[in-house]
C-alpha cells in the first residue's frame, strides 16, 4: 500500500528484542504474518522466498516447540534447515559461545535462529556473525517472536489491539515472554496489567509499558479483554519463591469462576507448555474462549514473516 510522499522499509538486520522495533515495524510483520496464516489455512504453499538459502537453528536450551516452529516456517519457504540442539555438546567442552558463532559464520548461512539460556547471549552472538540473527529466546530477557505471535493472535481474535485490557499473570520475574509481549502490546496501544506473587514480580515494569503490576489476581482480571497465563516453573517451590502449587493455584490459577470477572468475551491465552491444574484449569485451557492452539498456528506464520524479511540480509 503506497502512500505518496511516504515510504516504509523494514530496516533491521536482526530480530533481537521488541525494544528495537517501532509500531510500524510490528504492524508490518503482523500484516505479513497474517498473509502467511491465511495462505496456509487456504491450503496454499507460499512462494519459496528462501529457496537456496540456509537457515541454522542453534538451540542452547532444550525446546521442541519453538525449534520445530522455526523449522517448519523455514521449510515452508523453501530454505535448507539445519537444526542444532547444542544444549550439552561443544559448549561444554570449553568452546565459547563466540567460537561457536565464528565457526557457524564461516559456513555462510543466510539466517541463524538462536536460543540461549543467558540474557544477552543472542545479542553477543549477533555481533560476531555476518548474517541475520533471530532471537528465539535469551535467558529471562526477550522472546520477540512470541511477543509478535501473541499480538497477532489477539489482533485476530479482537480485531484490534488499541485500547484492549490485557492481563498477564504468573512468574513475571523469570518470563521473557512477559517482557516481549508486554512491550509489543504496549507499542500497539493495549493497556497491559501484570499480575503475580510479589516474589515473582520485578521492579520497573512500567518501563516495559505495563500500566500496573499487582498481586491480586481478582483485581487484575476485572474487565480484562484478554487473560494470558504464564507457565510456572515448578522449581520455584524451592528457594522460597512460593509455598506450594495448591496455594499458587488458589491465588493465581485461572478458573471458570475467576474468568467470569473478565469481560464477557474475554480471550484466554497461554504460551505453553501448560501446567494444567497449576496455573490454569483444564476446562478453561480447552474451552471456547481459549486461543492457545491458534497461538501455535500464528507462531509458524510470524516466523515465516520474520524469516522472509531477514534471511539473506548481511553485514
Amino acid at each position, binding site marked *: 500500500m503506497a502512500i505518496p510522499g511516504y515510504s516504509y522499509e523494514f530496516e533491521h538486520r536482526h530480530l533481537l528484542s521488541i525494544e528495537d522495533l517501532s509500531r510500524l515495524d510490528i504492524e508490518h510483520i503482523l500484516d505479513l504474518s497474517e498473509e502467511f496464516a491465511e495462505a496456509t489455512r487456504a491450503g496454499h504453499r507460499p512462494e519459496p522466498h528462501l529457496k537456496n538459502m540456509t537457515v541454522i537453528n542453534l538451540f542452547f536450551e532444550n525446546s521442541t516447540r519453538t525449534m520445530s516452529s522455526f523449522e517448519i516456517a523455514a521449510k515452508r519457504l523453501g530454505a535448507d534447515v539445519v537444526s542444532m540442539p547444542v544444549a550439552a555438546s561443544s559448549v561444554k567442552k570449553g568452546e565459547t559461545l563466540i567460537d561457536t558463532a565464528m565457526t557457524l559464520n564461516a559456513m555462510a548461512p543466510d539466517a541463524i535462529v538462536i536460543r540461549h539460556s543467558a540474557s*544477552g547471549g543472542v545479542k553477543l552472538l549477533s555481533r560476531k556473525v555476518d548474517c541475520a540473527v533471530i532471537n528465539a529466546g535469551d535467558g529471562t530477557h526477550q522472546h520477540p517472536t512470541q511477543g509478535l505471535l501473541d499480538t497477532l493472535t489477539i489482533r485476530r481474535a479482537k480485531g484490534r489491539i488499541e485500547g484492549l485490557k490485557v492481563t498477564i499473570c504468573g512468574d513475571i*520475574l523469570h518470563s521473557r515472554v512477559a517482557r516481549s509481549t508486554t512491550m509489543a502490546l504496549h507499542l500497539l496501544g493495549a493497556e497491559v496489567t501484570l499480575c503475580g506473587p510479589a516474589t515473582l514480580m*520485578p521492579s520497573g*515494569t512500567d518501563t516495559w509499558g505495563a500500566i500496573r503490576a499487582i498481586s491480586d489476581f481478582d483485581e487484575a482480571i476485572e474487565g480484562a479483554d484478554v487473560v494470558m497465563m504464564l507457565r510456572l516453573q515448578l522449581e520455584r517451590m524451592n528457594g522460597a519463591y512460593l509455598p506450594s502449587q495448591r496455594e499458587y493455584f488458589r491465588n493465581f490459577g485461572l478458573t471458570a469462576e475467576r474468568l467470569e470477572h473478565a469481560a464477557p468475551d474475554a480471550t484466554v491465552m497461554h504460551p505453553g507448555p501448560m501446567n494444567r491444574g497449576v496455573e490454569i484449569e483444564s476446562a478453561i485451557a480447552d474451552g471456547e474462549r481459549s486461543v492457545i492452539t491458534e497461538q501455535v498456528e500464528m507462531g509458524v506464520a510470524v516466523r515465516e514473516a520474520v524469516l522472509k524479511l531477514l534471511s539473506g540480509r548481511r553485514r
Partner: protein
Amino acid sequence: MKTLIKNARLACPASGLDESGSLLLEDGIIAAIGDVSEQADETVDAGGLIAAPGLIDLRVKTGEPGAEQKETLATASRAAVAGGVTSMVVMPDTDPVIDDVALVQFIANRGRETAKTRIYPAGALTKGLKGEAMAEIAMMSGSGAVFFTNGDLPVENASVLRRTMGYAASCKAIVSSRPNEHSLGVNGVMNAGAQAARMGLSGLPREAEWIGLGRDLLLAEATGCTLLVDQVSTGRSMEMIREARRRGVRLHVSVAAHHLFFNELDVGDYLTYCKVNPPFRREEDRQALIDALVAGEIDAVVSAHDPQPPEEKRLPFGEAAFGAAGLETALSALLALVQDERIGLLDALRPVTASPADIIGVPQGRLAVGAPADIILFDPNKPWLCEREDLRSRSLNSPFDGRRMVGRVNRTIIAGETVFER
C-alpha cells in the same frame, strides 16, 4: 645522583602546598622543595605540569601467583606507572592464598625484583580465605602485610569475624572488609532494580551492602578493631559510616574510582567490562559518593584493578567474570571531577596520596623533605581517548574503553628514578 624538577606546579595534599616551584631529589628522597638554587646532575623542566606525590593504591589484584596469564606484579606495575600509581597494595586472593609469612615475603620479594612500583602485600584474614580459621595475623603483620582482608568474599560467619577483629585489634592490625551479605544476590550480576529486570539479569541488591556494612561496623565497634570498609558503592552506606564515626568507631573508607564515574545504565548493551562487584549503582549513589569525596569522608580512592582476560569477559553477561582493569584510569577518573569543578585538585589527590599512606603507615604520599621521592608529573587538562588496545596491563578489561578522558601522566618517578615517561 641529584635530580632537579623545575618549573612545576607543586601540589601536596598533606601540607596544602599548591604553588609553582622546584623539587630537588637526591638519593631517592626529596631533598628540597620550593625555590631550589642547587646544581643537579639532571634537570627536568616540568613546563608548568603538576608535580604531585605518586598515587598509593590500596586495592590491586594481579594473577601472581597462580594466574599469571591475567597479570603479574610486573605487568600490573607497568600499567600502574603509566597511570601515576607508585605504590600498590596487592590482594591476597591468589593461588595459593597469601595466608602465611612465607607467602607475604614471597610477594614482597617478587615485587622488589620484578615490579616498577613499590609493592605491599595484604594478608588473608582467614586461612585459605575460607572464613573459618584465623590466619597468622601478627606474624604476617611483622613481615610486612599492611592489612588483612578476606578478599571479595567477606567472612560469612559473624562469630569468626568478631574473634578475628578482636585479635587483629590486639595486634594493632587493620581489617579490611567488603560489606556484603552474600546470600542476598547469590546469582546477581548487576545492580538490582528496573534496569536489571528489564535486561533479564539477576540483581545484586543494595540491601546486601547495607546489611554487611551494618554487621562489620557493629563488630568493629564492639572489638575496637580498625576497619577499612572496602569499596563503598551506595549513598546510604555513607550515612551508616557517618553514624559509626559519630560513635567513635575507628574506620577508613575506600571507594573504587570507577564508582565515581559510572552508574548502572553504563552496563548498556550487556557490556561485560562494566561487570564489577560491587556493581555500578544508581546515579544518585554515584552523586552521593562524589559528595562524600568532596566532604573528605572518603579516605582512599582505589583502582580496584582486577584484570580478566578475554576468555573471562567475552561471554554472556551473566557468565562473564567480575572485575575491571583500573590502574591506568583511576587518576583520570578523579581528574574528571576536578575538571567539572566538583572538587579541588588537592582534595581529589588526598585519597590517593597522603591519606592511604597514613592508613598503611608509609612515609611516601607527600612532598616533604626527607620523604621518598615518588613523584608524578601530569597535565590535568590533557584530553585523551581511552582505547583498551593502548593500555599496558596484561588484561585489557577496562570499562573506560572508548571513553574520552581528561588528565594524563607525563612522567613517573619512584625513589628518584624515572620509571615512566610519555
